[in-house]
């Protein structure tokens, strides 16, 4: 399978990438690791006429302690997250979930910013960043703005990014010692989650769901139940509330609703253990 023809531009910096997007408008797509975009292009589900390769914008590959939060450059690869000592000490959930994305080969190429910008509800990292209350830094022709994760994912593969904007940084609150569990249900080790549930417990409890709607989402009813004193088992009964799972070759919507109740219970229990 071969992608439709396109023009290839390589950006040496964030500014160059934004200038290229401004010049080519809606016809252009950013290429980072390519782990999501290239398969779509090979299937011709995406046919951009210009690819702007930001894979070598090394200034956007970093994990920094920024005082009250961690700053992660958008072009930091999953592999770099997986082996980060800073994350192991200050945000183990991000390190853990990065180590569960795809397989080794995918983690050698794929980036956190690419995953977030793609906005796939079946992806691991967008849901985690929702659960962590992360903030995204976005750069466009008129400068920089920040978008809370809660406002970023708008619809299926649709985010708050404008066509001329580049996600540059992910800001993650520190969470040393937080209880965490990601329950990822899949047929084969490297697959996308058929359903995923993650819980972060550090005083309050935050729960995010993978592949239960057109966007990643928080299990608000579960969080409210826990805050109101419910047990993990009681709270997990409400895990399918507010979800809109699709049916596909792997699971019917009803099966996904069953799975999410089981997985949320397991995640809550494992995160408080």
């Amino acid at each position: 399978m071969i992608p439709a023809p396109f023009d290839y531009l390589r950006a040496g910096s964030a500014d160059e990438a934004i200038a290229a997007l401004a010049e080519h408008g809606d016809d252009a797509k950013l290429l980072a690791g390519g782990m999501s975009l290239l398969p779509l292009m090979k299937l011709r589900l995406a046919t951009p006429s210009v690819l702007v390769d930001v894979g070598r914008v090394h200034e956007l590959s970093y994990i920094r302690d920024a005082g009250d939060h961690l700053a992660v450059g958008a072009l930091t690869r999953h592999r770099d997250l997986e082996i980060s000592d800073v994350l192991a000490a200050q945000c183990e959930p991000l390190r853990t979930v990065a180590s569960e994305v795809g397989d080794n080969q995918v983690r050698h190429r794929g980036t956190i910013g690419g995953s977030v910008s793609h906005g796939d509800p079946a992806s691991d990292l967008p849901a985690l960043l929702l659960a962590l209350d992360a903030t995204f830094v976005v750069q466009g022709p008129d400068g920089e703005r920040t978008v809370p994760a809660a406002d970023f994912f708008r619809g299926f593969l649709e985010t708050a990014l404008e066509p001329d904007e580049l996600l540059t940084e992910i800001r993650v609150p520190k969470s040393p010692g937080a209880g965490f569990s990601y329950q990822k249900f899949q047929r084969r080790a490297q697959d996308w989650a058929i359903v995923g549930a993650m819980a972060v417990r550090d005083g309050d409890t935050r729960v995010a769901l993978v592949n239960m709607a057109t966007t990643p989402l928080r299990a608000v009813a579960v969080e409210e139940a826990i805050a109101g004193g419910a047990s993990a088992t009681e709270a997990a009964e409400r895990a399918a509330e507010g979800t809109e799972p699709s049916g596909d070759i792997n699971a019917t919507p009803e099966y996904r609703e069953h799975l999410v109740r089981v997985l949320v219970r397991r995640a809550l229990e494992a995160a408080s253990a």
Partner: protein
Amino acid sequence: MGGSVRIATTVNGQAHEHDVEPRLLLVQYLREVVGLTGTKIGCDTSSCGACTVLVDGESVKSCTMLAAQADGSEITTIEGLAQGDELHPVQAAFHDQHALQCGFCTAGMVMATVSLLDEIPRPTERDVRLGLEGNLCRCTGYHNIVQAVLAAAGTSR
């Protein structure tokens, strides 16, 4: 639209320069432009790992990378592992442990293993099974493959 892009690569230690179409995939570049057909195209959807090669020492699926993205990189394919007649320790272990049935996945399995052992030199069986999760063997010959990787880890210290 399309045009061409000039890329320079080093494949198995040998320098190459080519004008390629931007949409040329790395696996096609290796097989059709450089002429090294040891790297296989299996699923062509980033699932099976048959096309695994090393780019700057790390395993990647070459069906899901543009040749243009590999510009300036050092690429190692299955043809680049042996030193003359002497097999690479991972190749020798696959041979000794009979870690193949039909052989189609083998080049990718070996390349993924070389990368895995670089990152985890003394893996447990679980490390090996997780580390090779991106490589499928349609013959389901995983048992001997895992044994071979463990053997290679013991001998390639």
